[in-house]
């Protein structure tokens, strides 16, 4: 490690460290504009100039020359150097505070300000602007340029529905362009022209259409890129920034909810190096609008005669309790509870406790659209990725295998983080039935035949065993397994329609890798549900590769919602003979639906006799209810979510509740009390304390512990001193903050445990052999339950379409954009009519439709879908 001297302080830093980074630990502040620790240096702004010297070497002895005091003689470089591009080396001496450096900073700032409008009083960045801060701290107090001679340019250029560009304020640092290119992998912003005419722009249509575009607002070091969602709604120093967790997908990105006057004004990323680093996707940034929707339900309601009528909480609770009380003590078997997996752990825990302990029923589920999909749950419980795994830091010695996943639409920020791991030295394998965005970063990518997932995985297992790379020390039945596995790699490859070499390479690479992680997504979960052989094969791959039970090893399920993992952990599943969702909707007599809307996806859904709905909105299900309890939005209460990699994270309360809405856990407690329970939880924290005591994996996970590093943001910064975090974000002065806690899996807590491996013969489903298969995918931005309340998201939601391979399109004589009719197997057979999108992302024999868009909402998910007919229903008008 090179030893360098910075401002007289000596420090050892890893080879390759840049001067700007080396200066941070010694407390020297080097101002930057274009540099950002998450991106490659560009050296575009010259703000980081410092004085650099190297020890003078004696050519004969190759030793540093020393002066009479025994100190090395320093050869100062004749000109100042950029600290953001200069890598430290042994003996380097850096001065960051000399008059020469101060003069350089002053000049750069004066130069930047010659063409800067200085309209800070009407600029959204004002108060968290690095240009303001640097100018105050290092800049000239005055200008030699008068307003008349200033450069003028366009002030409010809409770059996209979300982003407004002020061309006068842009200091041409290129951070936004580099972010889109390097980090987002969606190069939809560019620099046009050059010199004085240089402009940030987009040539794309739709313009600047990236799901990560909002991040450019945060990292722009001036107010050139501002959010059209937030613009002029508050000064940043008036905001209260509460620490929260994004509720839109299972990544669980850490956010600040910036509120003013009890309204969320903006959502910005809160750093968590283990989860979202400093990024967010646009969905997470924009979906908060639902919390303030005028359509929120704000009072309890009961059905009097035919209409739902507002009543007091007392009446509503009494109404329900009176209805339930007579049946208490008998059997609760006819009562069932369905809860959404966007709710907090505290809510889900009390919900199942109410059912199991007060009502005496195990009829609990949270996966209604997913039929009874518990496939894969055991894998996560036993072999979930080891504690300490940081998916953004995977590097040398790690192979990450993605199966049937499309993180770009399922878990966007995860895609962002996985995109860089090959650059860090990791091996990334992407296997799915169609092309996905992440595949463009993969070391090995392959497209298997939908329906042949079991063969694909078995091929990997066979390749591993053939190469003698398997480990049997934690397996029961390894020898029998390999005897029973009566398929060669070539046979598996033929079934999966991939090359045998690919299968062999992937299997061997994964097995031989020091660490191995498997991530499976929605499409793979469909496959697991369809054929138990898929889960059995994956189980064997994990156990026989030995990739579990420690950091950077194990499996991660890309669950669909922010707390799907927590719902499993809290016991929101039909254990001990309880009815799963698919049954309870028809067999239960009393249904309690919390934060879920089964009627939206299934219009045939009926009130089974008596139904309680607890929600924020008058959902399709709520309209059929007997009682409606108004629940608080997540921002109106605190709680915890468990993300896709089992990290339990705390979110704070940021808003006063709307009307009479109450937190879900509190409503459940009141109902339980009405029914005679002696529950006395004063807060969500109390519930969490009980969870920590009763659920072994959650031991010690109290709110206090989870709040470490998840505090409110100090919104007023001090110049040059402790900068508040938004400023640090824009300045690129990031420290490695991590918060939340991962629970340890069974294989981690039971190091000596052995696991059964059993061969299960794959069911030869029709898709694996012939015909056209309908792949059910997701669009990231949709008209989902919550997204519909964000206007900006709605402008960017794509129209539903059916993706068709260009060869198929030619064979079927379907032109791009033509309306086609697809008839597919289901009971009874159904058809869809949508415009065709002929592109390269689906292989021949597959058509893909996203089932979360207008017109496709009630597509069957994961059922065995065989397409029986594809025909043009209407030619396109020219």
């Amino acid at each position: 490690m090179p030893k360098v001297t910075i401002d007289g302080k000596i420090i050892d830093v890893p080879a390759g460290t840049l001067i700007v980074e080396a200066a941070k630990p010694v407390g020297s502040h080097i101002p930057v504009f274009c540099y950002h620790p998450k991106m490659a240096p560009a050296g575009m702004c010259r703000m980081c100039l410092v004085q650099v010297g190297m020890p003078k070497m004696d050519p004969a002895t190759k030793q540093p020359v020393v002066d009479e005091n025994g100190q090395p003689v320093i050869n100062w470089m004749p000109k100042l150097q950029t600290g953001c591009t200069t890598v430290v080396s042994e003996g380097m001496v850096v001065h960051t505070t000399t008059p020469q450096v101060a003069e350089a900073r002053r000049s750069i700032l004066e130069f930047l300000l010659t063409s800067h409008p200085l309209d800070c009083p009407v600029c959204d960045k004002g108060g968290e602007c690095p240009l303001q801060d640097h100018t105050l701290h290092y800049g000239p107090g005055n200008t030699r340029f008068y307003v008349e001679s200033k450069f003028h340019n366009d002030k409010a250029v809409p770059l996209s529905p979300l982003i407004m560009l002020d061309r006068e304020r842009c200091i041409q640092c290129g951070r936004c362009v580099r972010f889109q290119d390097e980090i987002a992998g969606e190069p939809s912003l560019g620099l046009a022209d050059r010199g004085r005419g240089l402009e940030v722009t987009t040539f794309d249509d739709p313009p600047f259409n990236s799901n990560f575009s909002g991040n450019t607002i945060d990292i722009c070091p001036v107010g050139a890129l501002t959010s059209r969602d937030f613009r002029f709604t508050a000064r940043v120093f008036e905001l209260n920034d509460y620490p929260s967790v994004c509720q839109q997908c299972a990544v669980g990105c850490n956010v600040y909810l910036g509120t003013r006057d009890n309204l969320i004004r903006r959502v910005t990323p809160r750093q968590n190096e283990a989860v979202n680093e400093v990024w967010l996707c646009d969905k997470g940034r924009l979906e908060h609008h639902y919390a303030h929707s005028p359509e929120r339900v704000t009072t309890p309601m009961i059905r009097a005669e035919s209409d739902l009528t507002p009543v007091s909480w007392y009446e509503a609770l009494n109404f329900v309790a009176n209805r339930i009380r007579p049946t208490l003590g008998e059997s609760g078997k006819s009562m069932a509870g369905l809860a959404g997996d966007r709710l907090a752990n505290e809510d889900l825990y009390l919900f199942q406790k109410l059912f199991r302990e007060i009502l005496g029923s195990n009829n609990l589920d949270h996966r209604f659209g997913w039929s009874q999909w518990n496939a894969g749950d055991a894998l996560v419980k036993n072999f979930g990725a080891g504690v300490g795994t940081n998916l953004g830091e995977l590097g040398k010695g790690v192979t990450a295998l993605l199966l049937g996943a499309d993180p770009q639409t399922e878990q966007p920020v995860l895609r962002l983080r996985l995109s860089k791991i090959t650059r860090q030295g990791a091996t990334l394998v992407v296997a799915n039935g169609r092309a996905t965005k992440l595949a463009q970063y993969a070391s090995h990518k392959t497209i298997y035949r939908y329906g042949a997932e079991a063969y694909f995985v078995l091929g990997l297992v066979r390749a591993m065993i053939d190469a003698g790379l398997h480990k049997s020390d934690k397996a029961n039945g390894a020898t029998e397994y390999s005897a029973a596995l009566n398929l060669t790699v070539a046979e598996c490859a033929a079934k999966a329609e991939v090359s045998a070499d690919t299968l062999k390479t992937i299997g061997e690479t994964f097995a031989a890798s020091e660490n191995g992680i498997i991530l499976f997504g929605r499409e793979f979960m469909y496959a697991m549900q369809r054929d138990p052989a898929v889960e059995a094969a994956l189980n064997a791959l994990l156990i026989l590769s030995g990739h579990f039970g420690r950091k950077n090893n194990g499996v991660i399920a890309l669950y669909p919602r922010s707390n799907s993992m927590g719902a499993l952990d809290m016991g929101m599943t039909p254990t001990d003979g309880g009815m799963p969702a698919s049954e309870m909707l028809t067999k239960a007599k009393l249904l309690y639906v919390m934060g879920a809307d089964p009627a939206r996806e299934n219009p045939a859904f009926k009130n089974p006799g008596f139904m309680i709905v607890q929600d924020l909105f008058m959902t399709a299900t709520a309209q059929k209810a007997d009682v409606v309890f108004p629940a608080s939005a997540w921002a109106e209460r605190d709680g915890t979510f468990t993300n896709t990699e089992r990290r339990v994270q705390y979110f704070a309360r940021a808003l006063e509740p709307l009307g009479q809405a109450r937190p879900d856990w509190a409503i459940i407690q009141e109902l339980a009390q009405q029914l005679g329970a002696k529950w006395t939880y004063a807060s969500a924290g109390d519930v969490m304390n009980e969870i920590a005591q009763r659920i072994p994996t959650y031991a010690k996970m109290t709110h206090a512990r989870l709040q470490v590093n998840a505090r409110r943001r100090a919104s007023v910064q001090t110049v040059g001193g402790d900068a508040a975090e938004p400023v640090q974000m824009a300045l690129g002065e990031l420290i490695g903050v991590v918060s939340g806690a991962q629970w340890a899996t069974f294989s981690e807590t039971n190091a000596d445990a052995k696991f059964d491996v059993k061969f299960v013969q794959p069911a030869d489903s029709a898709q694996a052999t012939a015909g056209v298969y309908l792949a059910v995918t997701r669009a990231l931005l949709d008209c989902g339950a919550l997204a519909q309340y964000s206007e900006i998201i709605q402008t960017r939601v794509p129209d539903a379409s059916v993706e068709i391979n260009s060869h198929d399109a030619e064979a079927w004589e379907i032109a791009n954009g033509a309306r086609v009719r697809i008839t597919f197997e289901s009971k009874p057979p159904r058809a869809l009519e949508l415009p065709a999108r002929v592109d390269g992302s689906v292989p021949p024999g597959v058509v893909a439709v996203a089932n979360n868009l207008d017109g496709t909402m009630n597509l069957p998910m994961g059922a065995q879908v065989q397409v029986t007919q594809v025909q043009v229903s209407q030619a396109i008008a020219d």
Partner: protein
Amino acid sequence: MLSETAKQKIQELKARYPNARSAVMPALYVAQAEYGWLPQEAIDAVAAEMGMTSTEVGSVASFYTMYHVKPVGAHVIDFCTDLPCALAGADAAFARLRERLGLDAHQETTADDAITLRHAPCLGGCDKVPTLLLDNQAQYQNMTDEKLDALVAQLRVAHDKS
């Protein structure tokens, strides 16, 4: 729309470089030859052929002055008015030529779309002043007023014929 020949040419160009993206610059020339300049449509077409985003292609096109991101006349005269040429009277020659072409101070292209006249930075012909570049191709040096008039006349004839 880009012609099939142009598309094919771009594909051939891509094959010539170890990194196919490097062909974006010659590909832009192919498109420019076809459209006369580079409208958004041409940029989109090159992007589609190159497998890049329109923004990536557009930023390259707008960086170099030899790509025309605004419409130009049939012939483009890049007239050097950089310091050595200016000292040798290029400004006056430029102004005179502009007048000859009937252009006012904000106009670059003649009304009949025959000729575009632009200021150019140093063309490297400082010893044979005035100097100009015609159609990104040929350098003309020692351009006296007579020679300039003759050149313009010749370009006009060529334009009228086509």
